[in-house]
């Protein structure tokens, strides 16, 4: 359909993301400081509880902070990933004011959610890297793959989130369903525990969990200081690409109805 809808422009995405982040702390006294303060406190709690009080460590890894590092390495990106999906799911319905008044491409809104969540994670990642550097566990040159993995991971989140967002317009139960499913997904992904403790049968299932492929890449990077192989990266790219592509196809088919029904 010529002339129908517009293309997503980078400048609009940036503006809306900025706005989203501004709104997050609008009116609070400390404002943007919270984006550093919150992850800092969370990480402090983990380190104190797991390393100093409980003394949990990871087999084959000597540092006292090993479990904390392992947990944070998986949990930080998982938080961005899961929050992106959960918030993207409802975004089309929540921002129907925009969809019903502007020829905005549908993908814009979930993309803004995912971008905002990604940016919101940066302070936490920086703090985490600083902590690793201070405790002498800084990742080596392999750290260059971190942005690549993270971008692919968030594109994966965008794919899942966009698909759910489109379906949510027709099936409002998806909001609750997504909340619950994402929680289950968390426990099916070795983030809080190590994969080796899993019984054989469960481990076989978990091996096919694409979220774990991403999480494993972070754990390799931060805990074991190994960069993911090119094949791993290609796999991650394929997961992200296929999911996002699939979501776009579904959205294309349902777009007209989304706009009329939202």
């Amino acid at each position: 359909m010529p002339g129908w809808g517009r293309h997503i422009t980078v400048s609009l995405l940036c503006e809306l993301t900025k706005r989203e982040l501004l709104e997050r702390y609008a009116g609070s006294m400390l404002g943007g400081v919270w984006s550093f303060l919150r992850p800092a406190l969370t990480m402090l709690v983990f380190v104190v509880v797991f390393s100093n009080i409980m003394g949990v460590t990871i087999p084959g890894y000597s540092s006292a902070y090993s479990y904390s590092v392992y947990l944070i390495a998986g949990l930080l990106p998982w938080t961005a990933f899961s929050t992106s999906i959960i918030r993207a799911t409802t975004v089309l319905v929540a921002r129907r004011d925009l969809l019903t008044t502007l020829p905005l491409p549908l993908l814009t809104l979930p993309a803004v959610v995912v971008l905002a969540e990604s940016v919101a994670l940066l302070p936490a990642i920086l703090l985490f890297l600083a902590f690793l550097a201070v405790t002498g566990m800084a990742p080596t040159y392999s750290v260059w793959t971190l942005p690549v993995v993270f971008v692919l991971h968030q594109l994966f989140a965008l794919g899942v989130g966009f698909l759910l967002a489109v379906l949510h317009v027709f099936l409002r139960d998806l909001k609750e369903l997504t909340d619950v499913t994402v929680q289950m997904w968390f426990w099916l992904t070795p983030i809080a525990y190590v994969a080796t403790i899993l019984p054989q049968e469960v481990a076989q299932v978990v091996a096919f969990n694409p979220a774990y492929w991403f999480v494993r890449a972070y754990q390799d990077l931060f805990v074991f200081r190994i960069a993911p192989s090119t094949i791993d990266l290609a796999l991650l790219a394929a997961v992200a690409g296929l999911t996002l592509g699939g979501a776009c196809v579904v959205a294309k088919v349902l777009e007209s109805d989304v706009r009329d029904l939202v």
Partner: protein
Amino acid sequence: MTMAEQSVLPTIRVCDVTKTYRLYRSPADRLKETILRRPYGRDVVALQHASLSVAPGEILGVVGPNGAGKTTLLKLIAGISKPTSGAIERHGRVTGVLALGTGFNLDLTGTQNAITNAQLLGMSAKETQTRLPQIIEFAELGEFMGEPMKSYSSGMLMRLAFSVAIHSEPTCFLIDEALAVGDAHFQQKCFGRIRDFQASGGAIVFVSHDLNAIRRVCSRAVLLRAGEVLEQGSPETVVNAYYKLIAGYENQSKPVSNKSGFSGSYGSLAARIHSVDVVGEHSDTNAVSSGEVTTVTVAVEAQRETPEVTIGILIRDRFGQDVFGTNTHQHNLKVSFKAGERCVCRFRMAMNLGPGRYTVTAAIHTGETHLDDCIHWADHACDLEVVGITGPRFSGLCRLSPEIDIRPWEEINRAAKS
């Protein structure tokens, strides 16, 4: 594209567009339909085979009863909704009332909201930065721009919204009558700005129930009914067609049965006013344009013999002010009835009134006024609407048809001397 080509191409072209909404009992039925490939909803046609175009510098008026598809048409033109079949071509940026103030967040400041809103309307970050001062100046919000928007009045909010929209350099601007922006001063400013926009080649689509406005500002109009383009052409013809349409509806819904059943009716009733009608020479309805020859017909039925009576009419404006009254006595016409006699008294006059809504009251009495001996007074027996102006425009309540000439001072002085 060269400028010449651009001026020839219509800004908006709607080609044979049909829009059907599928209604479902629940939105989930839409998914079932796709998956199970069985129909679960029913179709409602909002627009069918509509074709129209808007050229640069043109104001297209859209009129029609509720549910005619006016909003659907606006949404399709704006690209918010997708046509079921047919095509819509648009050249450049289309914006307007639908998007006024979209995405405003009351916790953020006026400036922050203006920037986001501008970019939502399609401006780039750079364009927004360069035009922000003009936007702020036009909105006349000054110091308030730095304040959170929750401290704004609704008028201030609309002013900012309109200012952003008109500065986003659209090629087509969609307006509906909801465009009541702020106080009278700002409204004038808005309309002035819209006129500038039109003069510089902007196209406008204007949806309104205010037929005066349609006649006054539009260069062309379309009449929609039940999703179909019923009439298309000059505002005059379209507005008249609309009046006929409404008249047809009203006849259906309430048959003419005001046999002395007027709301404020009193008198000795020796003779009764049977009915009162107002018909314009061209419009054929009680909606006439200013200056149009109009006939007010008073049908009278005498019960008893009534010698030397006066039949009169009185036109009042919407505030109940007497605007004009006349009667047979003032015209030295002798009228008297025999018992059972029926007659029709016609007042033909050029309706030299300013546009607006009026009421017509008719009366039968003796002498010059009804105060002496009132036979039948039928208050608000009929409505009259003056819509638009034929001939030169004017302002105010009455049309005095002046002749105007302009000469050098010297000539007047010379005439005075001689």
